[in-house]
């Protein structure tokens, strides 16, 4: 078994802490889950546990940021998106404060805890906030690049993480910024734009489609906002068909972002969105839960085959 993304994240925070003394890490009584506990252990003076109080957490981070510190705020993605929304919008984003929001347990990855803990609207909420950038890494490598990028920004950045293992993709070309779309396979029949763990599913789906004689172009979209609309449009202009795949409600996330960007360019295209339909999820083992809520390589294949 490989390392979970949260483990890689926790360790990487420690690495960053070694060279950047302005980085402070904060948590809301879930550091043993988010793995910010590693940083807490390594640099106790630069770690703040605010208890189960996500709203307070974010504004305390804002205060730290006003004085030149670089807070990395950790909490469950759903509680950052829902309990700290006012603080993120009216204090972090409005004032362009450089705080990194690390949303742990993104998507359905907190599978057994159930609907109350599964984060299916965070991307939509964060994306709607002016000036807030939104990144969803697909593997540990992208997570590190996303964190490096976020710590270099002048304003707030939301990074959505997963609790579980994320199969490692081929490493990104160094010249390709994390904000850019990465093309993983080339094909002329359908574009599959995926984010987070759905990128690995999209690659599997592309293989199955190839067996059916259909060539899929798989795009790895780490940065949902700002969206690399040029790369997306270039692909869809060629294929005319787009399937988006995300561990999120189909409302307001990657699928919506792509649809908006392409429609504004006047591109004719046919769209299918793989994601959670407009309903609440539930408890269960991760893989089966994803499949039940329509997120799987098979679902991507089905949707792709239905339009091309």
């Amino acid at each position, binding site marked *: 078994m490989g390392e979970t993304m949260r483990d890689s994240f926790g360790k990487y925070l420690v690495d960053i802490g070694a060279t950047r003394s302005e980085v402070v890490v904060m948590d809301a009584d879930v550091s043993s889950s988010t793995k910010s506990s590693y940083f807490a252990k390594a640099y106790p003076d630069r770690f703040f*546990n605010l208890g189960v109080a996500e709203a307070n957490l974010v504004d305390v981070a804002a205060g730290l940021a006003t004085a030149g510190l670089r807070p990395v705020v950790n909490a469950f993605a759903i509680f950052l998106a829902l309990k700290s929304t006012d603080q993120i919008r009216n204090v972090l984003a409005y004032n362009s404060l450089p705080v990194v929001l690390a949303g742990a347990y993104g998507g359905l990855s907190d599978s*057994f805890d*159930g609907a109350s803990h599964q984060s299916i609207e965070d991307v939509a909420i964060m994306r709607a906030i002016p000036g807030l950038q939104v990144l969803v890494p697909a593997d540990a490598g992208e997570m590190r690049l996303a964190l490096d990028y976020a710590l270099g920004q002048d304003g707030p950045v939301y990074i959505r993480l997963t609790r579980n293992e994320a199969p490692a993709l081929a490493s990104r070309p160094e010249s390709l910024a994390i904000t850019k779309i990465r093309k993983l396979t080339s094909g002329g029949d359908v574009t599959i734009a995926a984010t987070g763990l759905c990128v690995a599913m999209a690659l599997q789906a592309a293989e199955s489609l190839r067996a059916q004689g259909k060539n899929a172009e798989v795009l790895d979209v780490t940065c949902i906002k700002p969206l690399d609309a040029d790369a997306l449009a270039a692909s869809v202009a060629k294929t005319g068909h787009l399937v988006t795949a995300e561990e999120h409600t189909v409302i307001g996330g990657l699928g919506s972002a792509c649809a908006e960007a392409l429609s504004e360019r006047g591109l004719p295209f046919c769209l299918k969105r793989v994601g959670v339909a407009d309903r609440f999820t539930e408890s269960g083992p991760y893989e089966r839960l994803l499949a039940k809520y329509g997120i799987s390589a098979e679902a991507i294949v089905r949707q792709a085959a239905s339009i091309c």
Partner: protein
Amino acid sequence: MNQNLEQRALAEKDMPSKARLLAALSNRFRMEIFDVLHKKQTGHWGGSASACDIVTALYFHRMRLDPLVPLWEDRDRFVLSKGHASPLLYTVLAHRGYFPPPLLGSFRDLDSSLQGHPCMNKTPGVDMSTGALGHGISVGVGMALAARLKQKNFKTYVMVGEGCLDEGQSWEALMSAGKFKPWGLTLLVDNNDVQLDGTSREIMPLEPLGDKLRAFGWNVAPALYDGNNMQDIFTSFEALDAMEFWPKAVLYKTAKGKGVSFMEGKSAWHGAPIDKDSYEAGRPELVSAFERALAEVR
């Protein structure tokens, strides 16, 4: 005789005998919760075990309810604000007659009515869905205000842990209860001193909690009660009944992970899966506690 503990407890009129019966029952519930959590390899042991005696006392002694009519509008309400103690709530509800106990084995399964955190639209007897901490007291205030408006005399009980009290909303709710003084609202604090990442003292000190509650307009029961001692829980209820004004609060000293010595008071056992070795080492302790309690009611 085991099967009859529930019926015997419900029928018992002598309070000390009833407390002994409920102590035995609660010890059995703890054992059952431990079994299910080990079998499922998911779910929160620490806060289920700490609150087990209190919730057992509520459903088998204190609350007015009818398991056959879960939505009876005159029933007393219970809001488990620390919703991660769902295994406890489900176990008590099942044995109180809300649904068949074998269903407990489906805890957290796909398609199960027993969600990771309580869901009022899936599980009979659950009065409010919880899981995101911090909501319970507010909802309790609303329920108690509804009783007043609808001229009902049902009572509302809300249970929180210290972590749950970290949330700012909890204090907004406490303040609003101080303003509206809703009749019938009781706050039960499962004060096990430990939250997810460590002790409350390390994570977010809450003391002096009783004084804070009083300052917010609550009437706090006079003593710190042992929430893992059924007789003391009964005493706390008498103390609550002797108080005149609402809202009321009671603080219970409990042990997180109660009943398994090497798990007690350890944040590591807040929600970690119970591995085979720990299960085998811990279960005999729960069994002997149950047998001791049972011997008292033979």
